[in-house]
């Protein structure tokens, strides 16, 4: 009998617990419904985000290809310009040499004409011809202007060549940018990996692009005043080697 009473008491308790559970459930269900609605709404959005990441990810190899193409093109153009500068410099050296040769020959002709003038002092017509001939010798007069112009060509050519070193600096900066882009691509790939079970997509290297490794470029490379920065380095070397600054100053003085 007692057992039957206990069973009813226990049943009552269980029903009470069940009732409480229904009350709690009644409170939670609207929240769960909202969560389900939210997940249903956000699902397509997540797909869109994933597609956008995939799209951006797919464009990255193209971007790195473009950067490498730009680097190659500027490298090619720069070496071609340097070839031309080299040719201009060689030609200018040759021209200077030829001019000096001609100047030396003109000096010899002048000496001969001076001797000739002494021999024809009695012949006014011949004397006049010698004088006319002497007047035709103009290289000596043109020496200063010509030398100045040739020196300027050489200096300009050298300055252009120095300025072209900016290409090397640009290449290093572009390599740094490429490295950065590839790091972003890796991150995007890992995000996509989280969304799906696909493998991490690698950069399409169909064009044989040389992907810059960190350390092959100077991330802080800049085209700055070469004299001032070299001066600082020279000072450091002088301090460690006891080399004379006068030697360096003489060169640029």
């Amino acid at each position, binding site marked *: 009998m007692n057992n039957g009473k206990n069973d009813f008491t226990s049943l009552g308790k269980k029903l009470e617990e069940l009732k409480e559970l229904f009350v709690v459930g009644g409170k939670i269900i609207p929240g769960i419904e909202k969560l389900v609605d939210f997940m249903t709404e956000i699902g397509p959005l997540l797909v869109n985000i994933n597609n956008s990441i995939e799209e951006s990810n797919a464009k990255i190899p193209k971007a790195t290809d473009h950067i490498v193409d730009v680097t190659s093109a500027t490298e090619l153009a720069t070496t071609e310009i340097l070839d031309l500068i080299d040719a201009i410099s060689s030609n200018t050296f040759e021209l200077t040499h030829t001019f000096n040769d001609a100047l030396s020959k003109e000096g010899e002709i002048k000496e001969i004409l001076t001797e000739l003038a002494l021999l024809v002092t009695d012949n006014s017509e011949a004397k006049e011809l010698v004088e006319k001939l002497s007047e035709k010798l103009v290289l000596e007069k043109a020496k200063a202007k010509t030398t100045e112009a040739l020196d300027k060509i050489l200096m300009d050519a050298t300055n252009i*060549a120095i300025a072209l070193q900016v290409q090397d600096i640009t290449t290093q900066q572009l390599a740094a940018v490429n490295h950065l882009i590839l790091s972003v691509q890796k991150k995007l790939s890992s995000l996509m990996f989280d969304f799906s079970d696909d493998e991490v997509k690698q950069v399409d290297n169909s064009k044989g692009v040389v992907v810059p490794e960190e350390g092959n470029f100077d991330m802080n490379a800049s085209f700055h005043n070469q004299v001032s920065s070299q001066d600082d380095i020279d000072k450091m070397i002088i301090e460690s080697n006891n080399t004379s600054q006068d030697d360096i100053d003489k060169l640029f003085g």
Partner: protein
Amino acid sequence: MKKVILVADDSPTIRKFVTFSLAAKGFKIISATDGMEALELLPSSNVDLIITDLNMPNVDGFELIQAVRENDAYVDVPIIILSSLGSEKDIERGLSIGANSYLVKPFDPKKINYEVSKYIS
């Protein structure tokens, strides 16, 4: 006989510019695109001086200098660093492992000629 200068730099522009700066002085210039190629060229080239960049693929400038200095055959070959890295730390490191001079890019042809003339003529 022409003195031989080995230029190690991955930038064709810089290799060309160094050649432009020094070839007119009668030096024979041979070039390598990285430290590895430079080390391969050394035994057969009778090199009198090395000019090297620091940032290079495969074997970088620091490794090249170390390898050269560890080899008895080239221990006395002068080495000039030519790099865009110009921090005190890089310069000290370069000189401490055996480089003789340090030039920062961009450089003046007169300056490189002067540095080279300190060791060979």
